[in-house]
């Protein structure tokens, strides 16, 4: 019996190794529309080429830790990973990604396709913009300014070009428009100031427009500059025209207020655009306009938030992974991703007639993306964003004055950087 059993096992092992396809790739993707598009692309690729692609899908909140733990432990679990761009610097700093240039050269390309938007491809290089290429951009998000076109026309307000215009318009709407679409109170503006990512994302465009910089040329934190404090004071002034409790708002709260027609303006991401024309969700169909971010002392700049795809340094199938990566980010494939709702990272697709007809905000999105700024490129961004967000949220909930909040934030950021040295 025993020899028979072991023979059977050996046979099974042999069978398994024979039936396994020649090439196999494992892909870590985020749950949600961005990852879904890449999953679909992987299925198409498998059908076309026979390369089997295994998918590991994680919710956004777990993806970073899963990927970094696996890559640092060199477990070779993934051949391709999706990265949110603020994480990129950490991965590059840990030296766990593959330099793509030699792989692209072997595929007959001298570098990334010039059709990629410059600000998107700059995110994929370490150091930023100038260094080696470690990823390719897949989803081209950048912030947009959302406002109620109908109300702006009703009160003869000019489209918001500066933050002062925004404040004036918000005050006018706040005073004159007492009730929202559903009979609830109408607010002039809605922002999110929950600690962490939310508060920082809504603050950075104001901070930059007011002339604030997170670091000076030598890398020392300077958030408590007069410009930074003025920007935070402005955010709080604008917050007074925002629904109460905004100091704990996240993207879904902001979305709900805009969809319910109870707030007139906000900074938001392109992913929300399609929901405004969805009859089952929206009370403001046809009333929303999307434009680039307002300016102040400086011209307005959006925060960029792209999804990138990279190849771990320890991938055993780097060349096969690169072939898939180039295929998935090609114009033809990215167009399919765009049709599924993801903003592209290629200029030609933002200008594609078919896509523009379905996505009227594409011209504004391209302008916003091309003029966008990345979050400061540091491997300690998660920690810095957390600390900065806590103090922004505290200032917005009235716990701290803008100056105190910025001074304390500056001290915490300095501590984080010192520890890293």
């Amino acid at each position: 019996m025993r020899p028979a059993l072991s023979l059977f096992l050996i046979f099974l092992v042999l069978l398994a190794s024979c039936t396994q396809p020649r090439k196999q790739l494992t892909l870590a993707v985020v749950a949600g529309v961005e990852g879904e598009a890449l999953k679909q692309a992987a299925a198409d690729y498998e059908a076309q080429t026979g390369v089997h692609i295994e998918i590991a899908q994680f919710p956004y909140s777990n993806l970073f830790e899963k990927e970094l733990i696996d890559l640092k432990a060199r477990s070779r679990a993934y051949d391709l990973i999706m990265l949110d761009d603020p994480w990129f610097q950490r991965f590059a700093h840990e030296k766990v990604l593959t330099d793509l240039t030699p792989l692209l050269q072997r595929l007959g390309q001298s570098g990334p396709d010039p059709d990629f938007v410059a600000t998107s491809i700059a995110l994929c290089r370490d150091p930023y913009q100038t260094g080696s290429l470690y990823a390719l951009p897949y989803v081209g998000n950048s912030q947009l300014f959302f406002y109620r076109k109908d109300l702006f026309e009703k009160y003869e307000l000019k489209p918001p070009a500066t933050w002062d215009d925004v404040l004036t318009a918000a005050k006018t709407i706040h005073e004159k428009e007492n009730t929202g679409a559903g009979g609830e109170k109408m607010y002039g503006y809605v922002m999110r100031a929950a600690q962490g990512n939310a508060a920082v994302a809504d603050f950075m465009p104001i901070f930059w427009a007011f002339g604030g910089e997170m670091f000076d040329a030598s890398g020392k934190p300077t958030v408590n500059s007069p410009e930074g404090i003025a920007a935070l004071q402005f955010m709080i002034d604008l917050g007074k025209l925002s629904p109460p409790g905004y100091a704990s708002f996240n993207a879904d709260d902001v979305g709900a207020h805009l969809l319910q027609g109870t707030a007139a303006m906000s900074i938001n991401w392109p992913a929300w655009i399609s929901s405004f024309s969805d009859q089952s969700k929206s009370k403001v169909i046809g009333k929303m306009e999307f434009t680039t971010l307002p300016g102040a002392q400086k011209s307005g700049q959006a925060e960029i938030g792209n999804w990138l795809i990279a190849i771990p340094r320890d991938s055993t199938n780097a060349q096969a992974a690169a072939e898939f990566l180039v295929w998935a980010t090609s114009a033809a494939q990215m167009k399919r991703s765009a049709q599924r709702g993801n903003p592209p990272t290629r200029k030609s697709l933002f200008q594609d007639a078919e896509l523009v007809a379905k996505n009227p905000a594409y011209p504004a999105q391209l302008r916003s993306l091309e003029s966008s700024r990345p979050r400061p490129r540091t491997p300690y961004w998660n920690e810095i964003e957390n600390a900065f967000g806590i103090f922004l949220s505290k200032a917005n909930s009235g716990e701290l004055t803008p100056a105190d909040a910025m001074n304390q934030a500056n001290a915490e950021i300095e501590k984080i950087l010192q520890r890293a040295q």
Partner: protein
Amino acid sequence: MPKSRRFFNARNKRELLLPALFLAPAMAVLLALSIYPLIYSITISLQQQTAADVSWGLGNFTRLLSDNFFLTALVHTFVYAVVALTCEFLLGLGLALLLNEQIRGRGIFRASLLIPMMLPTVVVGVVWRLMLNSNFGAINGTLKEFGLNTESLTWTASPKLAMLSVIAVDVWQWTPFVFLVLLAGLQAIPQEPYEAALIDGSSRWQTFRHVTLPLLKPSILIVLLLRTMDLLRVFDQIFILTEGGPGFATETISLYIYRTAFRFFDFGYAAAMSFVLLALTNVISAVYIRLIQSEPN
């Protein structure tokens, strides 16, 4: 004296073999899943990651003392634990005494009281998050119906009310547990002492103070011990309700440990904080256990 030597003689060896064989899988699992991770976490808590390399020492522990976030989170954890424990205990005891009496519909009350405890904490968190939403939530909606101005009642978004809100949710969910344990304790008390007290003509308060309370003490201590340990490591409902905010108003140690480990990727510092939390929990639990053991039984 040669007891130990006899222990290892040939016959005993054979006799020991079998139990050792049976114990081996359990020991292996224990080693792999408890002992090894414990030793590993001790080693990483003594390591500090710098830009260039790793340095050894107590740096993570000394850093705790100058970390305002950690110290504030520690205070929040204790405020949360003390207030929630007091409310849960008083309410649970009251309910247990009430439902220990012969009142109509006792079964229905007892059963319905247990519902919050049976719900997963994450579900409780999401439900309360929606109910406490200041603009669309059920609580402010109801208050508005009564004509109250809810403009300033932003619950989880207000630095003043956020801590109270998360504590209230914990009290709502875990009072039933305290109630259940104390009710079981009350039902285990024999009738005789009560009859004796009745004969001696003691008042209701005297009976409660001198008969019920002393006999209920073991149950009280056990439920307080279990709740204290749970409250000190609270994570899920706060994570769902406020994620520690607004600002830092409801950040507890567990949340901060989680953030440090999985967001900032500083496992050494997170391990150091976990050991401090473990030590504090152990000290407090030891006090309870000493009290339980000192019970003359």
